[in-house]
């Protein structure tokens, strides 16, 4: 991203190609910019986000859940949380949203090249990490992937299509857990931190990627530290209220940092330098 870039705050229209209901709360929107040329030229990186507009609803930051290794469309997976996201859930294929971006510091895929990855996600937190996982699997020379995914209940498990592929992939180990079981569930019950003890990963050759609710992130970061992961090799994404996406409005401040430009991806080492009591 060039520092000389300028921002006019004008979203570009994008057409919904397809909608995938991941669970009762999350839908994945497959989108293409209405301007075909712009759509072809569009690039982004895992961990970055778009500002999504809906008429009268303003904007919300949403991470890419798709990988740039599969160009042509982008995917945004949206959990129904309030006004804009609920309105988005009411849309149909063929409808339009406004998009501006991409924004934010990404996961640096080059740094992950060849390393084993330990992915720990909760709920919608799998969305940005799905971008990394599928990006890695699309790139020759990737290491082993261990994916731990926690959901509230079994019917909340999102991205089932991907999970099915990952569970059958020779380089991937994928474990699911739920906070509370439902009839028919014979998998583990409990927090995702409980799965950490059961997996075989070598902290020296692995990078951990963590995304989920703030309390989960805090617990997982501590547990990973105890397992021997270096702070630089624990990466997470931070959620903050955002308005501009370019580091001027200050809504996303996290101590001296602005999450929209200094993040949303941070290493544990970076976070430790900040006052984490306000996480």
């Amino acid at each position, binding site marked *: 991203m060039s520092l000389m870039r300028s921002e006019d705050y004008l979203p570009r229209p994008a057409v919904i190609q397809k909608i995938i209901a991941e669970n009762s709360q999350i839908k994945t929107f497959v989108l293409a910019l209405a301007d075909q040329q712009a759509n072809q030229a569009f690039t982004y990186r895992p961990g970055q986000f778009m500002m999504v507009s809906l008429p009268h609803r*303003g904007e919300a930051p949403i991470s890419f859940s798709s990988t740039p290794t599969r160009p042509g469309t982008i995917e945004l997976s949206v959990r129904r949380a309030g006004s804009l996201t609920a309105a988005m859930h009411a849309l149909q294929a063929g409808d339009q949203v406004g998009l501006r971006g991409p924004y934010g510091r990404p996961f640096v895929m080059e740094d992950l090249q060849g390393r084993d990855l330990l992915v720990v996600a909760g709920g919608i937190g799998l969305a940005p990490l799905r971008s990394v996982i599928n990006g890695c699997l699309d790139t020759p020379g990737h290491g082993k992937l261990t994916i731990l995914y926690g959901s509230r209940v079994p019917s909340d498990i999102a991205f089932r299509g991907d999970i099915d592929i990952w569970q059958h992939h020779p380089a991937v180990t994928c474990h699911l857990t739920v906070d509370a079981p439902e009839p028919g569930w014979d998998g583990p019950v409990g927090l995702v931190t409980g799965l950490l003890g059961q997996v075989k990963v070598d902290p020296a050759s692995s990078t951990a990627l963590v995304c989920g609710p703030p309390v989960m992130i805090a617990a997982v970061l501590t547990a990973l530290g105890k397992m021997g992961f270096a702070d630089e090799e624990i990466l997470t994404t931070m959620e903050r209220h955002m308005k501009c996406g370019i580091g001027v409005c200050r809504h996303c401040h996290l101590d001296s940092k602005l999450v929209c430009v200094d993040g949303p991806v941070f290493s544990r080492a970076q976070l430790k330098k900040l006052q984490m009591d306000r996480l």
Partner: protein
Amino acid sequence: MRDDAMDQAFILAKDHLKSFLRKVKKGHRLVAPVTNQHNDTLFCTINHLDRVPINLTEQAQNGIKSFLFPQQETLATYAVSADGYRFNRTDVRPEPTVYFGVRPCDLMAVLYMDVVFMGGVKDQHYLEKRQDSVLIGLNCNAPFANCFCSATKSGPFLETGFDLMFTDLGDRFLVEVGRPKGREMLQAWQQFFTPAEAEDTRAQYQLSLEAMAGFRLDVYADQAIQRLAAGLVPESVWEQLSLRCQDCAGCAYICPTCTCFTIVDRPAGPDCGERLRSWDACTFAGFTRLAGGHNPVAHKIHAIQTRFLHKLKYDVDKHGRPSCVGCGRCVGICFGGTDIVRFIKMAGED
């Protein structure tokens, strides 16, 4: 006038000021401080130089922030039609503007806004207003009651950052040339200016010494900055301040360097509307509230911390200087006494 002669200072006789400004007005909108019938001194657009007297003796209540970064501005209009969901820019290009009589603190504040809005990704709406503006400053021979710019190193006299800088020498102004736009302006209207003599620059130096001695408040900003950096400011300071903050955001709105904003949609009909940006304040409850209700800055005490840490710690780390320019406006406006001068005093105490 030769180019290399431009480094020196010039003299504009006070009798010629109006004629000079009249010429300036031909190609620019002129913004300068004016005292209105309510006795408020405010920067405003001057349409008739003969009807409104420019006031160069009071401190303007507003500064020039709102001209470059309006309290509310339309970023775009939107419409949903058979064409889809489209955003358009409607506003006309801003007029080239000369800001005249800008005090050093307010001038430094504009330079700070330049860093915020143009230092990284360039904010197009700010950039368009800023790129065609000329800053003509006025050094302060006599600081006002709440001024403390000497403590924040942003006045009362400035040597750089301006396009032109005026110093009042009684019957004449000493005019210094700074950035290229000032040089162009002087060259275009050189008939009004004569080279300054050594005695003029001596007189200016003398005035600057008197100004430095004229501050009425003792504000030890460096001490507070150092104690913040070292983590020596006790929690009780924040607690006491937060008890009296009424969440009115007066300090943020009046402050020439507070630039937080929000963006909202305002429907104009079922299928169209405007996207507006308006001033916001980090001290407001809800500034950082997330969907789901989780708020990382939930307590008043944190909101107060955010404001002062931003000005006196984060910006010192990032830009090498505080983003409080010592204009003293928040001192006058805060009825709870939760202003930055109070904070600096409390933070500096053992």
